[in-house]
């Protein structure tokens, strides 16, 4: 129960946050940060239970019809992730109070930040795939609004939209994947999937994985995870998302949201993993992302973009490790996830502080800030060391495990990992050391130490990096070990130690650091070389291309279909009738259905028929309006004569009367309308005539068929028999109109009444002057 309430309470906080900040209370952000802090402590208290494989759960039957239950489960993997979210969240909430203190829209900002936090917690804690998906989409949505927080800027709007489209699109694919998975396995509850013998590999079941729809489901789900975690080729949205205010970048784009994809992979590894497609796709995509991110980070000069690309590298590494799937690799993934959140979160916040205090984020314009920002500088320096993978920081442990994993596989993989390591060291130097040491450079603003709210976060995160470095075994027993077991789907005992002795991994690691420092020292010339290489054909290019293409296609098709020419609309509809009717008639060979009982033709009947046809032709060919109207009237009179001839006197009278009235109306109205003119080209006329004749022919055939095919007798006998005794009338048609089918007549006179109102309104309505 509590566990569901934690998530809900964060959404609740979103509702009240704007009220909190209404009167610019400086303490508001501290006060409201108590909520995520409390939640973090609560999660910490659940750790022992989770480690003992007795996780806290909650389930509420919600959307049963869809298999979506409101069920939560806090095992170690979930808690690790949830604590990152609420813990980093606490710091970010405080930090944002300082960073955005003067922004008039800060209340709104917090509302969306809390929605995001709640959604993230939901993703981490959901035990139901659909519920997870719902929270997943909410994170995309709230991150859209957060990225676009400074929405007066065009770039912020575009970046927000890009992030939404990429992650939202992946999310939709994932939705299809989830539904397929649910249909294959019969449940959407993750815990049930994990424990069920037919679905979980570790439980020995292969039924799900051998299902023909498994591979599509797998790939669709992977698409969701890859887009969210900015894996190649969807990585381009992440650097652009740096348009967001820094607290957002720190929170969403390094510590939490981008890791949701990694989390999902880890979560579903026991169900979806263990096959070649998983192995090659996940580790392959991860590897490429790692390389691309690492490579691109060398050339950046913007603090946040630097961090973003190096985050890409890290996300790629985690993905690759989960793809590899050995216990060691999984251990490395979990440890890296943890360590990365600590040091990267700290560095992002530092970057924000630098930006806030100096007015620039360009590393070439920054230097010697340590004197002015000693606390921030300390945090930056130590976190940079953790990132670079130096002992005794937690980052060192993480890097060692990753290296060990690389060695476990093959030299090529190891080489790639070393490349990533190089870039990590490089970025750590550029971000964490560069701005603070060396010569003080001019900056747009005169730098001061950041306020408490803005250095508290970096310091605490840095302290955690240190603490975790010194006491790895505690962390390993409490979180890492059980979390890795969750990912592996079986109990894995993991040991973490700061010191492994001198082994290959350690030596390679030292070599990487030294090489990295060398690269750092030649950073300016390195950048100069790399920036010359342009990547025009990157995925971002294709994104723009497809967006533009889609827009162009949309305009072209709309201009073509919705051309504005009524004739074309009519033509298309008529073609539909002719093709639809004609084809379905052709399918059954119905062209030769002919009436069986046909009455003979009397001479004067033929004459009436000729009259109608002649009138129709005259109406079409007449070059004067009055002629056409007269012809129309003649056709109507012909129809009336047919009615009279075949036993329908009421119809005939009405037709006569209406025809007369219609002709009068036409004449009265045409008095005010222009004369006939020949507007269409002869070609159009011939085309139209052909189409019209075809349609006419179809109608002829349908009439013949209808007369020929008799399915059952008419219900009219009833009317004939009951008209006099029950309805007290001798004129059966009239009785039908006023009694048997009185509803029709009621509707009919209503139509007439409306027409009356309408004609009156159209003719009498005067538009006010000056409005047209």
């Amino acid at each position, binding site marked *: 129960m509590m566990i569901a309430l934690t998530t809900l309470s964060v959404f609740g906080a979103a509702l009240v946050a704007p009220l909190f900040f209404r009167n610019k209370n400086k303490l508001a952000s501290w006060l409201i940060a108590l909520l995520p802090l409390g939640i973090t402590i609560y999660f910490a208290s659940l750790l022992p239970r989770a480690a003992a494989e007795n996780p806290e759960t909650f389930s509420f039957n919600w959307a049963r019809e869809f298999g979506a239950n409101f069920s939560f489960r806090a095992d170690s993997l979930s808690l690790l992730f949830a604590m990152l979210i609420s813990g980093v969240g606490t710091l970010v909430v405080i930090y944002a109070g300082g960073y955005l203190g003067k922004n008039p829209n800060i209340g709104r900002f917090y509302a969306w930040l809390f929605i995001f936090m709640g959604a993230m917690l939901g993703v981490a804690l959901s035990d139901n795939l659909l519920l997870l998906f719902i929270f997943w989409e909410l994170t995309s949505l709230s991150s859209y609004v957060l990225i676009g927080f400074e929405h007066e800027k065009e770039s912020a709007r575009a970046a927000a939209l890009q992030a939404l489209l990429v992650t939202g699109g992946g999310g939709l694919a994932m939705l299809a994947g989830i539904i397929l998975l649910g249909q294959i396995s019969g449940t959407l509850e993750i815990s049930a999937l994990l424990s069920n013998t037919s679905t979980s590999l570790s439980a020995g079941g292969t039924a799900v994985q051998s299902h023909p729809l498994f591979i599509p489901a797998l790939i669709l789900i992977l698409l969701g995870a890859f887009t969210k975690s900015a894996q190649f080729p969807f990585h381009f949205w992440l650097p652009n998302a740096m348009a967001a205010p820094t607290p957002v970048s720190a929170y969403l784009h390094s510590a939490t949201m981008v890791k949701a994809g990694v989390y999902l992979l880890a979560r579903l590894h026991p169900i979806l993993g263990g096959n070649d497609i998983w192995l090659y796709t996940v580790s392959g995509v991860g590897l490429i992302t790692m390389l691309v991110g690492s490579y691109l980070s060398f050339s950046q000069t913007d603090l946040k973009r630097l961090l973003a690309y190096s985050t890409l590298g890290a996300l790629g590494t985690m993905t690759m490790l989960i793809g590899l799937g050995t216990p060691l690799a999984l251990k490395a993934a979990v440890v890296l996830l943890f360590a990365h959140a600590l040091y990267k979160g700290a560095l992002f916040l530092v970057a924000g502080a630098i930006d806030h205090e100096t007015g620039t984020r360009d590393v070439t314009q920054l230097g010697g800030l340590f004197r002015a920002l000693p606390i921030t500088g300390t945090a930056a320096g130590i976190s940079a060391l953790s990132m670079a993978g130096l002992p005794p920081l937690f980052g060192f442990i993480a890097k060692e495990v990753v290296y060990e994993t690389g060695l476990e596989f093959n030299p090529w993989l190891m080489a790639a990992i070393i490349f990533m390591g190089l870039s990590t060291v490089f970025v750590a130097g550029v971000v964490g050391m560069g701005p603070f040491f060396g010569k003080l450079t001019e900056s747009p603003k005169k730098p001061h130490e950041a306020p408490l709210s803005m250095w508290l976060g970096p310091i605490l995160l840095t302290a955690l990096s240190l603490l975790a470095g010194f006491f790895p075994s505690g962390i390993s027993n409490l979180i890492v070990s059980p979390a890795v077991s969750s990912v592996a789907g079986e109990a894995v005992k993991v040991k973490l130690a700061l010191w492994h002795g001198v082994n290959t991994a350690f030596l390679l690691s030292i070599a990487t650091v030294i090489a990295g420092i060398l690269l750092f020292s030649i950073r300016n010339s390195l950048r100069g070389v790399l920036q010359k290489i342009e990547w025009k054909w990157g995925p971002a290019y294709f994104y723009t291309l497809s967006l533009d293409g889609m827009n162009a296609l949309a*305009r072209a098709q709309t201009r073509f279909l919705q051309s504005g020419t009524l004739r074309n609309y009519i*033509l298309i509809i008529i073609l539909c009738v002719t093709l639809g009717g004609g084809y379905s008639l052709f399918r059954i060979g119905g062209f030769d259905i002919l009436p069986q009982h046909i*009455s003979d033709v009397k001479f004067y009947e033929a004459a009436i028929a000729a009259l109608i*046809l002649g009138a129709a032709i005259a109406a079409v060919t007449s070059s004067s309006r009055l002629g056409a109207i007269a012809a129309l009237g003649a056709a109507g009179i012909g129809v009336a004569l047919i009615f009279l001839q075949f*036993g329908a006197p009421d*119809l005939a009278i009405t037709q006569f009367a209406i025809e007369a009235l219609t002709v009068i109306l*036409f004449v009265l*109205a045409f008095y005010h309308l222009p004369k006939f003119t020949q507007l269409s080209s002869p070609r159009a006329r011939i085309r139209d005539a052909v189409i019209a*004749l075809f349609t006419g022919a179809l109608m002829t055939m349908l*009439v013949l068929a209808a007369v020929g095919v008799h399915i059952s007798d008419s219900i009219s006998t009833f009317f004939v028999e009951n008209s006099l005794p029950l309805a007290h009338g001798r004129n059966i048609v009239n009785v039908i109109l006023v009694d048997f089918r009185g509803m029709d007549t009621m509707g009919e006179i209503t139509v007439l009444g409306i027409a009356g109102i309408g004609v009156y309104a159209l003719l009498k309505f005067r538009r006010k002057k000056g409005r047209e």
Partner: protein
Amino acid sequence: MEIVLAFVIGGLYAAGIYMMLRRSLVKLLIGLALLSHAANLLIFTAARLTRAGFPIIGMDQQALELPYADPLPQALILTAIVISFGVTAFALALSYRTYKSIHTDDLDKMKTTDEADDSKETSA
């Protein structure tokens, strides 16, 4: 006679459709009126024809003698005729009003509401 009338109906439809495909609003209206003639005749014919035998019980009779014309389609057509009269009257008023505000009856010149990218104010 059904066959003959089937062709008459086809002819009326063809004429109506041809007129509807013209560019002139006035011709369009005539086309619509022709279509409604066609539809009425179609219902009448499809429900089978009988000569004589009004569906009216004579004052001196208690029941209708066979053969008689099916009264139901007649009632339907009556309703349809009346409705189409209302519609025609409205359509005439509409075209009058349109002509007053656009000063043309050329349908090809009535495209402003379908042009996607124009910045002209179209709505009232």
